[in-house]
């Protein structure tokens, strides 16, 4: 067994020493991990508009597509047979993004949500989940991208200050299919997301992008796992984060596993963090495990730095004041990824939120 595989497929309670939990403050999970949470079925996820033809969103009873070793996901599955399932029919191409939102405020209960997104062969769609309001939610999201299909999945965590969000986003990507995801985490008390990809057929590809910005007291963890099980699959991971304020804490784990069968794999992962004040902590752990040498490429990079004095000097030497220069640099840092959302309203909203967080954290007055 390698470090990237686990056989703990029955319900268990993490103690905090396990590799998968060593950074997470378990006490702040509202009991989702140990069974003490009183779970409810809120079905908080709602479509924003009427769904186009070829797209359905149903509540069904269904088993999980594949087992998991994640303790919270196991408890969610034990709790509920009910799944909210979004299906995009075979050969359907949906030009406009399909928007879903959670916007309610309920901090009394803990929602356990099971969601499945099924993109049937040769279908193409963009699905956006917009999470705002204040919830305590454990989310088991399973995504199937069928042969030759194309899914862009965007999950926005613009939560209020008290939210707790633990989610596993597992995508199974079939032959010649493309899965792109963009994760934006700018709100919540604790957010722990597990974007995972299993390549199930050759010729498949995945691009996982993310941005996060944590301010005082916030804990945001993004724990990525890309499993190259088959030959000729390509993966790209690029997450960028900023932190400001006392006890702002982010964790980025990038696990990539190239199995013996996965010849012709092409993978690269990158994580960059910008520490904008003292008292904040960014953990960044890329981890590549390779069982075959017959690959196109495999690499990773991780950097954590502060404001670049030369950039600030250059901008200020053109008359731009210190606060505006810092704002420009931070916006610029995130633009590469935020601009990939391709929705001006959302992009502007995220950037405005980042400006707000920056101002609130006092990180622009250096």
């Amino acid at each position, binding site marked *: 067994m390698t470090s990237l595989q686990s056989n703990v497929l029955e319900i268990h309670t993490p103690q905090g020493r396990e590799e998968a939990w060593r950074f997470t403050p378990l006490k702040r999970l509202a009991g989702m991990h140990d069974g003490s949470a009183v779970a409810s079925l809120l079905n908080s996820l709602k479509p924003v508009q009427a769904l186009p033809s070829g797209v359905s969103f149903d509540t069904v009873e269904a088993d999980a597509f594949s087992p998991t070793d994640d303790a919270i996901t196991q408890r969610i599955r034990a709790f509920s047979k009910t799944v909210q399932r979004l299906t995009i029919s075979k050969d359907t191409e949906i030009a406009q993004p399909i928007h879903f939102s959670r916007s309610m405020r309920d901090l009394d209960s803990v929602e356990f949500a099971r969601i499945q997104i099924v993109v049937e062969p040769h279908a193409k769609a963009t699905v956006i989940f917009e999470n705002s309001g204040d919830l305590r939610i454990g989310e088991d999201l399973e995504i199937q991208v069928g042969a030759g299909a194309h899914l862009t999945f965007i999950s926005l965590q613009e939560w209020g200050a008290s939210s707790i969000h633990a989610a596993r986003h597992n995508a199974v990507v079939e032959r010649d299919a493309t899965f792109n995801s963009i994760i934006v985490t700018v709100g919540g008390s604790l957010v722990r997301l597990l974007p995972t990809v299993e390549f199930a057929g050759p010729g498949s590809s995945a691009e996982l992008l993310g941005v996060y910005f944590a301010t005082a007291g916030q804990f945001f963890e993004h724990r990525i796992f890309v499993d190259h099980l088959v030959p000729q699959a390509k993966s790209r991971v690029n997450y960028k984060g900023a932190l400001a304020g006392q006890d702002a804490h982010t964790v980025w784990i990038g696990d990539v596993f190239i199995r013996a069968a996965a010849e012709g794999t092409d993978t690269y992962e990158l994580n960059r963090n910008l520490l904008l004040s003292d008292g904040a902590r960014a953990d960044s752990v890329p981890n590549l495990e390779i069982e075959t040498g017959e690959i196109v490429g495999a690499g990773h990079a991780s950097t954590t730095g502060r404001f670049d*004095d*030369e950039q600030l000097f250059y*901008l200020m*030497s053109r*008359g731009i004041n210190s606060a505006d220069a810092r704002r420009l640099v931070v916006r610029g840092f995130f633009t*590469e990824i935020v601009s990939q959302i391709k929705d001006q309203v959302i992009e502007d909203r995220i950037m405005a939120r980042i400006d707000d967080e920056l101002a609130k954290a006092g990180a622009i007055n250096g």
Partner: protein
Amino acid sequence: MSTLEIRGLKVSVTTENGDVEILKGVDLTIKSGETHAIMGPNGSGKSTLAYSIAGHPKYTITGGTVTLDGADVLEMSVDERAKAGLFLAMQYPVEVPGVSVSNFLRTAATALRGEAPKLREWVGEVKGAMEALKMDPSFASRNVNEGFSGGEKKRHEIMQLELLKPKIAILDETDSGLDVDALRVVSEGVNRAKENSNVGVLLITHYTRILKYIKPDFVHVFANGKIVEEGGPELADKLEAQGYEEYVNA
């Protein structure tokens, strides 16, 4: 009419071996419309002079004064110096990822003019400046200095000189890394700025070739952290013929 006055300027930097004095008392006066060339060997402190006037945090002023029309430049923050009318075209302009040239220029113009320029006029201004410097229109949407060639970086600096209209401009080795065509285009930009806004220019260079395009009124030879000889354009001809050896070993 503006005057930048540098008197007895002493500057040091902190290194692993302690503080090292780079500028050892520089006196220089630059007025609107004048072009001063500062020439000197590598390591003589020319760039330190440029960055110290602009306010780079790496340099510590240990003595002397710098005033612009009587106002104490050394008391100003970096952006205040730009607002007062100083401009530094850098030898190595800095990449700012994710910030487009058009956003950067507009933000700078807004800061310097005190209000956002009217969009339609501004677009015309930028377009004109880019055309004059033979820059592709796609340039405006690229990120500041990111992936720019040496020539593109210098054109971008001079474009800012033309758009931001400073009172006094310091051009730090603007000629370095330019081929003959780019050197001509960039020099024409400087000459346009001189003509249009009567900017005073402090041209820092190692070589005399840029002086064939931008005619200096005064030439100052810089060595070991201070000005060691001054004269008119003929001094540049002497340097061309004899090099810096006489000053370095002095």
